[in-house]
């Protein structure tokens, strides 16, 4: 018979695992607004464009920031690390600012869907660099993050001239629409579901072998993916996936860090701060991929210094450490 402290220790261990799993699962792609609330915004955009939708956005953000502290808390995970010395009032103002910026991005995404993506002004000076990478015919991994207008810049992808696959997990109850869903436009990418067979890894490998483009998020761990590494980010260790770097090592595809930022209403910039080459034969150990994850995180760190209010990864990526 096991001693009572043994079962207590096992319970505590399991409980800690459950809490860790819960933290990782806290994120969902599901919008905090209802379908009806989204439709109000869409109707305002149809009637008068973004400038009719912005005033309602101010009211909605004020409501969520003052009456729904749990929503405000989601911005605090990041803001506490990015601005550790700010007081409560300044942090409240920052939460409002970051929420407002995200709201504007979502409104402009909806406008691109309703009135056409040509209403967007996308500045993409590094496009030539991507063309040169594609000419290597090893495929190309675009490693994105939840920053700037990551959903708004999707119309830029077809201009790269290769089929695009995107690793994307959508909640079955998602009510907010991607831009192409508003007017039933062709989707600019084919989705790979990370919840599919073997996490979609074989589909990703196949796409790269055909010289296609694979878009992944470098700052989000999907579901129960165990292939993660803890890397310092904004002064504290945070959890990042390394699967894409493993796939890059096996396929020989370069990894282009692919960020965007909002310049102003309907105006976005796309930048390639780094291109990461991962050598073959690194094996299976997470430690082998550490240097490459570090480079991505360094680019993300620099981004948050340049665009501090355009980081929209609202889950506690530091909690696991």
């Amino acid at each position, binding site marked *: 018979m096991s001693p009572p402290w043994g079962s207590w220790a096992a319970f505590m261990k399991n409980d800690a695992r459950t809490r860790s799993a819960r933290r990782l699962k806290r994120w969902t792609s599901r919008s905090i607004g209802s379908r009806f609330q989204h439709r109000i915004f869409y109707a305002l955009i149809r009637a008068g464009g973004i400038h009719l939708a912005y005033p309602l956005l101010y009211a909605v953000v004020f409501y969520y920031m003052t009456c729904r502290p749990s929503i405000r808390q989601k911005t605090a995970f990041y803001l506490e690390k990015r601005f550790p010395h700010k007081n409560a009032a300044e942090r409240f103002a920052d939460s409002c600012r970051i929420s407002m910026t995200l709201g504007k991005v979502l409104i402009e995404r909806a406008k691109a869907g309703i009135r056409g993506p040509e209403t967007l002004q996308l500045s993409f000076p590094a496009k030539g660099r991507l063309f040169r990478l594609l000419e290597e015919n090893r495929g190309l991994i675009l490693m994105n993050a939840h920053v700037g207008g990551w959903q708004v810049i999707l119309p830029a992808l077809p201009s790269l001239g290769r089929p695009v696959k995107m690793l994307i997990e959508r909640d079955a109850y998602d009510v907010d629409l991607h831009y192409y869903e508003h007017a039933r436009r062709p989707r600019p990418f084919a989705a790979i579901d990370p919840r599919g*067979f*073997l996490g*979609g*890894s074989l*589909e990703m*490998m196949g796409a790269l072998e055909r010289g296609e483009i694979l878009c992944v998020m470098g700052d989000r761990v999907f579901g129960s993916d165990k292939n993660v590494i803890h890397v310092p980010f904004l002064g504290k260790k945070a959890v990042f996936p390394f*699967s894409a770097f493993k796939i890059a090592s*096996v396929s020989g595809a370069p990894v282009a860090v692919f960020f965007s930022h909002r310049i102003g209403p309907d105006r976005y910039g796309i930048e390639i701060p780094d291109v990461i080459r991962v050598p073959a034969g690194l094996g*299976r150990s997470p430690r082998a991929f550490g240097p490459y994850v570090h480079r991505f995180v360094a680019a993300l760190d620099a981004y948050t210094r340049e665009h501090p209010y355009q980081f929209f990864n609202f889950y506690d990526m530091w909690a696991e450490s």
Partner: protein
Amino acid sequence: MHTIPMDIQTKLKTIIVEELNFEDLTPAEIPDDIPLFGDGLGLDSLDAVELVVQIQKYFGVQIKNMEEGRTAFQSVNALAAFIAERLPE
């Protein structure tokens, strides 16, 4: 129907143990029919990527897409049969 050469099964088990870092397992301890992923041997998506590479390296056999992978990756037996059917002459 192809018979599955024993040496393919043995080599596969050795690859699984050595290349996928199964420190507490010997090749002989891996049952032929245990599922490779999920509740069986517990391999994950990156193990699958590594297996694809190793199979190509040692046997010269490619697993090109998800449909092939779904068939091949069911067990050591299934994977060995998949390789036996496609071994270069």
